[in-house]
């Protein structure tokens, strides 16, 4: 039961575990997917925010830079304006002083850094040389000893020859411009920091600048074609815009020159004067830096989405495949590349595994799907964004996030494994605990109860069920015990009832059998003894014996088929029939059986029958007539030899009607015996299921000495049967009858008769008995002595000689009458007359005296009268003595 319970518990726990496991799995799976989705979405959003924030930041910075440059232009103009005004108002020496302050050497080297001849452009863009033949160093070298005024003159000459003609041609106002109008601007004095301040006058020619080389430069580039590589679009745009703009100031976007330097120009228009425009240029280095930082590699590269997951930045572009051009999303940037040499950058997203369809159509709401990306089955999602800096649709981009399944579930797998192990462990513990608990509470209790019940079932009704460790078991135990007690009571009552019935039946049975022994003490022609040991159930055995007249004695044994009360009743019927028929005195044994049989056959519904052996003996002659109705043949001891009596078998009584029974004859001599028994004897069984058997029975008669003591014989046989059976239950009645024929006639009337064996004990018993009898009569001590002495002598004689030294039996009869004591010894041994022996010669000397012979001498001497006879196959020794009776004192 322990096994069944554990089996089911194990099954249940296993199922629970599996269910839990599967639930975990599903939950974790969904969790993993959910996590991935969230992770991807979040990362994409964050990345996009990052990008767009940076764009926005950059925008802001650019705006600020313009503002900054514009402010610088503003401040520069204010300063220069005030300077110009003061010049216009007052002294006019501004320019001059300025000019004179110039260090020509540095001016020269600045203006002509290559120390080449002065060159200028003519209207064709050619280079005429009005100062041909003059090198600048001639004009302006330090070694020259020219004075400041001389140098000024040269400069004026230069201007007049070089700059002015051009200006006159293009801009009429320029004719009024004098050399003195040129001014070099010291940037440090004007604004700090600024790298470039230019002052083109209203016509567009630079009159003032921080760079000498710019003097006379035509901002409008009138001499150049826009296709000319020297054409400066920026200055042209600047001039055009500033004069068309409503704004006072104008800031240009950042440009990067050929040397990689970044410039931003801003200008202010001075409308009411010839000053023209003040242009300020700055180097917005930090913008570049920021733009640098904006680059995709720097912005997105550090972002990680998972172990092997990637963020991809792609833009829609023309892509050529086999000569044909398609519009495809091209990977512009990708994070987490293992191999830098074989980068995905520049390849179409399609090649990587993400389809165009997916990117262009509105996929599912959250754009979540899965593709095989670069060999890994991955979760994919994307967001679209636009480049807010350029606001150009062609600059729109797509941000894709890919998370390989392995990554997605990596942590989940670890979780799952640890959860599984944890759960398994938990369930094992649960199993053990429940198992133990139930074991303790229930199963052990049940086992104990069951084992007690088993003992009870096996027949031990005294077993108490004592399982008390919880209330339920206490109740169960008490319930069982109460039931068993009640049962025991019922059984007892039933047993008692049965026992009563049985006892009654048995008493009916046994009370009908003669049990008083010796049954005929006054008759000494024979001895008879019978014994019935009933089996547990009332059996059908019986025996009977009775005199039908003075001489004819009947003894019989019978066995009814069956057990119980029906058998007992049948037995009674049979017994009564036989006896009543016998007592008619006119019927022979065969006849008695014939009529009994017929009577029993009638009204024999139960079809019972009885086996029987009956003998009728004439005790005066020893002639025996017997008939056997299917019964075990008896043992007869004839002439000291035992054998089974051969009887022609007749049928049972109560079998078939009108059966003719045959009787047979036997002559018993004195000392002969007839032993009857039922099959309870021969079929007594021991543990090994062996039967006692007829041979074993007969063997007990091997060493007998006739005449046998019937009671002793039967008891010996019973004891031997008991020993054989050795406690094994008796199943059938064991019934025995033993009949010993002794003598024809009886001279022993009125005498006390004893049938004794020649054992030593007999002498003591006999002596004690006779002594007492004589004492009670008041006999003289000497007489008692003498008589007991004689007793001993005769006894010794019989013991030692009558039966060849073997133990035998003899009859002792005595009588005390009329003050005379008489006794008779009857033995069935060898014929021997002790009186014929000569008396010993008592006069002989000791050495001549023979040892023996004294005994009988004493007998003859001490008794008054001794006589001997041999008849009925027995020695009869009779003795008499007159007693001297002491008169009782009054």
């Amino acid at each position, binding site marked *: 039961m322990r096994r069944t319970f554990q089996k089911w518990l194990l099954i249940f726990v296993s199922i629970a575990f599996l269910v839990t496991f599967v639930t975990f799995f599903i939950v974790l799976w969904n969790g993993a997917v959910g996590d991935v989705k969230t992770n991807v979405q979040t990362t994409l959003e964050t990345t996009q925010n990052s990008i767009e924030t940076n764009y926005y930041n950059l925008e802001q910075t650019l705006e600020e830079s313009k503002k900054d440059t514009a402010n610088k232009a503003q401040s520069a103009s204010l300063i220069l304006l005030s300077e110009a005004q003061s010049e216009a108002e007052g002294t006019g020496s501004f320019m001059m002083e300025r000019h004179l302050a110039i260090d020509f050497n540095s001016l020269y080297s600045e203006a002509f850094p290559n120390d080449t001849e002065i060159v200028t452009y003519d209207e064709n863009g050619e280079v005429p040389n009005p100062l041909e033949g003059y090198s600048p160093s001639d004009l302006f070298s330090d070694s020259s000893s020219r004075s400041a005024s001389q140098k000024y003159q040269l400069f004026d000459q230069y201007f007049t020859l070089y700059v002015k003609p051009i200006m006159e041609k293009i801009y009429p106002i320029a004719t009024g411009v004098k050399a003195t109008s040129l001014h070099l601007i010291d940037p440090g004095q004007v604004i700090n920091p600024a790298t470039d301040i230019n002052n083109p006058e209203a016509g567009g020619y630079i009159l003032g600048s921080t760079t000498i080389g710019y003097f006379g430069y035509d901002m409008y580039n009138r001499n150049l074609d826009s296709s000319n590589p020297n054409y400066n679009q920026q200055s042209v745009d600047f001039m055009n815009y500033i004069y068309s703009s409503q704004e006072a100031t104008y800031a240009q976007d950042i440009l990067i020159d050929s040397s990689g330097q970044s410039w931003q120009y801003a200008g202010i228009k001075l409308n009411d004067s010839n000053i023209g425009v003040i242009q300020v240029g700055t180097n917005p280095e930090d913008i570049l830096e920021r733009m640098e930082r904006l680059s995709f590699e720097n912005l997105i590269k550090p972002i990680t989405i998972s172990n092997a997951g990637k963020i991809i930045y792609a833009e829609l572009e023309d892509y050529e495949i086999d000569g044909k051009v398609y519009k495809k999303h091209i990977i512009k940037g990708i994070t987490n590349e293992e191999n830098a040499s074989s980068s995905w950058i520049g390849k179409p997203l399609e090649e990587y595994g993400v389809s165009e369809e997916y990117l262009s159509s509105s996929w599912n709401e959250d754009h979540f799907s899965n593709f095989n990306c670069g060999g890994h089955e991955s979760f994919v999602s994307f967001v679209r964004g636009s480049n807010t800096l350029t606001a150009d649709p062609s600059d729109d981009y797509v941000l894709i996030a890919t998370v390989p399944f392995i990554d997605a579930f990596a942590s989940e797998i670890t979780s799952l494994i640890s959860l599984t192990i944890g759960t398994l462990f938990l369930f094992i513990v649960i199993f053990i605990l429940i198992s133990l608990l139930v074991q303790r509470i229930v199963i052990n209790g049940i086992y104990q109860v069951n084992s007690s019940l088993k003992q009870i079932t096996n027949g031990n009704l005294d077993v108490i069920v004592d399982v008390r460790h919880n209330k339920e078991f206490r109740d169960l135990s008490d319930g069982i015990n109460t039931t068993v007690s009640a049962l025991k009571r019922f059984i007892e009552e039933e047993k008692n009832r049965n026992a009563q019935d049985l006892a009654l039946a048995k008493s009916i049975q046994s009370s009908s059998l003669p049990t008083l022994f010796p049954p005929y003490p006054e008759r000494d022609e024979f001895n008879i003894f019978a014994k019935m040991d009933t089996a547990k159930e009332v059996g059908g055995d019986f025996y009977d014996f009775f005199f039908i007249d003075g001489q004819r004695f009947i003894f019989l044994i019978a066995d009814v088929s069956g057990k119980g009360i029906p058998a007992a009743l049948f037995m009674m019927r049979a017994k009564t029939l036989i006896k009543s028929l016998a007592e008619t005195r006119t019927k022979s044994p065969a006849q008695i059986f014939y009529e009994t049989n017929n009577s029993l056959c009638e009204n024999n519904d139960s079809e019972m029958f009885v086996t029987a052996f009956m003998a009728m003996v004439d005790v005066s002659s020893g002639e025996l007539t017997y008939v056997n109705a299917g019964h075990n043949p008896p043992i007869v001891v004839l002439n000291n030899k035992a054998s089974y009596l051969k009887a022609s078998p007749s049928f049972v009584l109560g079998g078939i009607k009108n059966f003719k029974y045959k009787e047979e004859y036997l002559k018993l001599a004195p000392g002969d015996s007839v032993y009857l028994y039922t099959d309870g004897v021969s079929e007594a069984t021991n543990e090994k299921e062996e039967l006692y058997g007829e041979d074993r029975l007969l063997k007990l008669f091997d060493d007998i000495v006739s005449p046998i003591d019937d009671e002793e014989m039967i008891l010996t046989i019973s004891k031997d049967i008991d020993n054989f059976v050795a406690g094994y239950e008796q199943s059938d009645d064991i019934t025995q009858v033993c009949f010993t024929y002794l003598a024809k006639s009886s001279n022993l009337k009125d005498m006390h008769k004893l049938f004794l064996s020649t054992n030593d004990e007999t*002498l003591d018993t006999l002596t004690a008995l006779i002594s007492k009898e004589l004492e009670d009569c008041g006999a003289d*001590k000497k007489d008692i002595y003498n008589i007991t002495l004689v007793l*001993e002598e005769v*006894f*010794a004689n019989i*013991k030692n000689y009558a039966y060849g030294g073997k133990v035998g039996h003899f009859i002792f009869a005595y009588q005390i009458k009329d003050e005379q004591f008489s006794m008779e010894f009857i033995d069935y041994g060898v014929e021997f007359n002790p009186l014929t022996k000569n008396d010993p010669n008592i*006069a002989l000397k*000791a050495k001549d*005296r023979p040892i023996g012979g004294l*005994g009988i001498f004493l007998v003859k001497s001490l008794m008054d009268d001794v006589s001997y006879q041999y008849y009925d196959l027995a020695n009869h020794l009779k003795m008499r003595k007159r007693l001297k009776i002491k008169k009782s004192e009054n």
Partner: protein
Amino acid sequence: MKITKTIESDKTILTVDGRLDTTTAPELAAAIAELDGGVKTLVLDFKDLEYVSSAGLRVILSTHKKLDAEGGKLIIAHPNDMIQSIFALTGFIEILNIED
């Protein structure tokens, strides 16, 4: 029957109590046989002997004969009246050395 042995300087005494019959006679015979050879004088004290039968008489006679042959002596001491009369009846009174 009870036999008590007493050894004195010049004789051995066997006191026989009870009954000397066919059953007990062999005991006496055995007790006598156990005595060392060379017992000169053996006394059978019958003062507490109630009864003697022919079996006892046989033992007494054979013991008497044996001692006699060896040059010893058997004395029967203190037999009671009945035993005495048996001795008388059987002529043993003439043969045995009986001391009252």
